[in-house]
């Protein structure tokens, strides 16, 4: 068999199957240890994560020879790489990539900050040899069927798909359509069926989900803190992250956590209440940045273990820049259109409101201390979207008016919107989606550029509480 290149072993470096690291101390005692992940560096180097001062690490410090065995998750063929330690990196792109992966997986398990990458240990690959006791599986019907769920898909970012995607995005003229169009385009042009889009919230360090695709639970309004889960880690680092073999990684992180058990860490145990697959084997998170400003975070998921290529990450990062500019442009466009919009409409109760009272009345309570709204005792929304809804409902109650403009909200001192980058459109979009999911008796319906109506299919009792 010809010696394969490291590039041809790309699937071995996804962390889908555990690797085995062999080292030897200066006094000749061999050591064999599990390894979660071997990282490809270049055509002649790999990197291993250094997280703990364990025996393997101590051995390498005194004897640079190592051997690592990695099975190919697509074929079952085992490969052994004869290695020589050349040095460690504690910063830079490789370190960041490995560190982010560990952070994202740990965070997914609610264990963020517990497992730090101390260094990316770099090894020169002296030889690559097939492991004779781990030959590749024969390709038969059973194996083909098994592989169908695991094999590496072909790259999806073809020029044609990119053109289709771009054309779709060019044709929309409001934020809501743009966001939906992006997620639909990711599925229809590239085959990414599960995705979500998050934007920075009003509260510092919080991201809010404004759109999802491919999940049973829509999840609009679901929040995640910076550094939590793949979206939070992407937002914090402002770098894309690709994770394969997430389940294995999570098991590894949980095993480490059990070993590092500390009662003080119990507060970190939680699951992030975002929509998503129960077992998201592959994830790709991309920050949408315009001149360093975070416009949003796009997350793609798959239950297939090796769904996203490294090239996918690079290309979707590029696509992310384009999407970020498109989003910012449409926000500016909508805002400039608001300036030209007419004054607030005359007080009148719209048709939907007039026929409201056929359903049972609903109690809307606004909690001023938390800035959140509960409808009939059930949480609806908080922060700026809650303040907007409360303002709309109180105007409607006091004046009978059901039609509003974005411009009047911008000028409304009680909402206290910032003069620049107020993100009003994304908040209205979030509010509309949240109402659709949780309170369909209330509906915010666009009425041309910068205008909308609040339609109520029931009477409303408003209460304000501390």
């Amino acid at each position, binding site marked *: 068999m010809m010696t394969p290149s490291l590039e041809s072993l790309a699937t071995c470096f996804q962390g889908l199957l555990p690797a085995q690291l062999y080292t030897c101390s200066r006094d*000749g005692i*061999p050591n064999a240890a599990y390894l979660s992940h071997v990282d490809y560096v270049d055509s002649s180097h790999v990197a291993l994560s250094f997280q*703990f001062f364990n025996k393997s690490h101590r051995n390498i410090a005194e004897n640079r020879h190592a051997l690592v065995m990695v099975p190919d998750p697509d*074929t079952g063929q085992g490969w052994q790489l004869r290695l020589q330690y050349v040095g460690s990196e504690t910063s830079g792109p490789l370190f960041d990539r490995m560190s982010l992966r560990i952070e994202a997986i740990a965070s997914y398990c609610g264990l963020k900050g517990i497992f730090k990458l101390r260094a990316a240990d770099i090894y020169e690959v002296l030889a690559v040899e097939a492991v004779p006791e781990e030959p590749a599986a024969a390709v038969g019907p059973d194996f083909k069927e*098994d592989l169908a769920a695991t094999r590496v898909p072909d790259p999806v970012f073809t020029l044609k798909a990119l053109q289709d995607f771009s054309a779709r995005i060019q044709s929309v003229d409001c934020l809501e359509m743009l966001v939906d169009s992006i997620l639909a385009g990711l599925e229809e042009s590239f085959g990414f069926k599960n995705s979500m889009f998050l934007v920075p919230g009003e509260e510092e360090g919080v991201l809010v989900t404004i759109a999802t695709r491919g999940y049973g639970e829509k999840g609009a309004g679901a929040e995640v803190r910076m550094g939590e889960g793949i979206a939070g880690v992407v937002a914090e680092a402002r770098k894309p992250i690709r994770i394969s073999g997430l389940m294995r990684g999570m098991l590894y992180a949980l095993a480490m956590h059990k070993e590092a058990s500390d009662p003080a860490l119990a507060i970190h145990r939680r699951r992030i209440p975002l929509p998503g697959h129960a077992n998201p084997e592959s994830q790709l998170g991309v920050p949408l940045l315009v001149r360093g400003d975070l416009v949003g975070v796009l997350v793609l998921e798959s239950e297939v273990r090796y769904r996203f290529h490294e090239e996918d990450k690079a290309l979707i990062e590029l696509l992310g820049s384009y999407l970020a500019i498109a989003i910012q442009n449409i926000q500016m466009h909508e805002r400039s259109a608001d300036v030209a919009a007419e004054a607030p409409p005359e007080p009148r109760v719209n048709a939907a409101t007039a026929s409201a009272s056929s359903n049972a009345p609903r109690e809307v309570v606004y909690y001023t201390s938390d800035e959140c709204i509960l409808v009939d005792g059930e949480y609806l929304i908080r922060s700026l979207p809650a303040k907007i809804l409360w303002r709309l409902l109180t105007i409607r109650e006091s004046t009978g008016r059901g039609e509003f403009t974005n411009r009047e909200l911008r000028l409304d001192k009680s909402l206290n919107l910032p003069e620049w980058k107020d993100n009003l459109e994304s908040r209205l979009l979030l509010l509309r989606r949240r109402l659709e999911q949780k309170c369909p008796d209330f509906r915010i319906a666009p009425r041309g550029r910068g205008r909308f109506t609040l339609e109520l299919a029931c009477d409303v009792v408003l209460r304000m509480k501390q």
Partner: protein
Amino acid sequence: MVDADLAAFVQQCVGIHIGTRNQRLEPNGARALAVRVEHDGAHIVVYLAEVAAKRILPDLQANGRAAVSFGRPIDDRACQIKGTFISLRAAGPQERAEIVAQFESFLTNLEQIGIPRSLAQRWPTWPCMAIRLKVTAVFTQTPGPDAGEPMR
């Protein structure tokens, strides 16, 4: 040195690897199929496909040092037994069922984390060699800060 609990763990559902080293202190390694802990807890027999045993035998015969790692895929519980080489023989037909059963239990455990057992359909289990080691130390290896600590 290997108590009953640990013996039960290493003889079921685990991936097994044996590490050796040559005279230049370069490590070598091979996948093993099964292990048997002897009643005294002071000796183990590691079973490897013949093709795997051949690769590490020169090291064992030259210096006798060995390290055997055990890892359970579903929860990453792991340990390592260090030992010195005593003898090598061909595994007997009466041992075959136990060897295959242990290896199958490992494949089943892999399946539980989504790795199809067909991946290992051609990994040889027979003919098989039995390597007997004297246990010199036992270490925990479950990932975490205690990995590498002697097992108490």
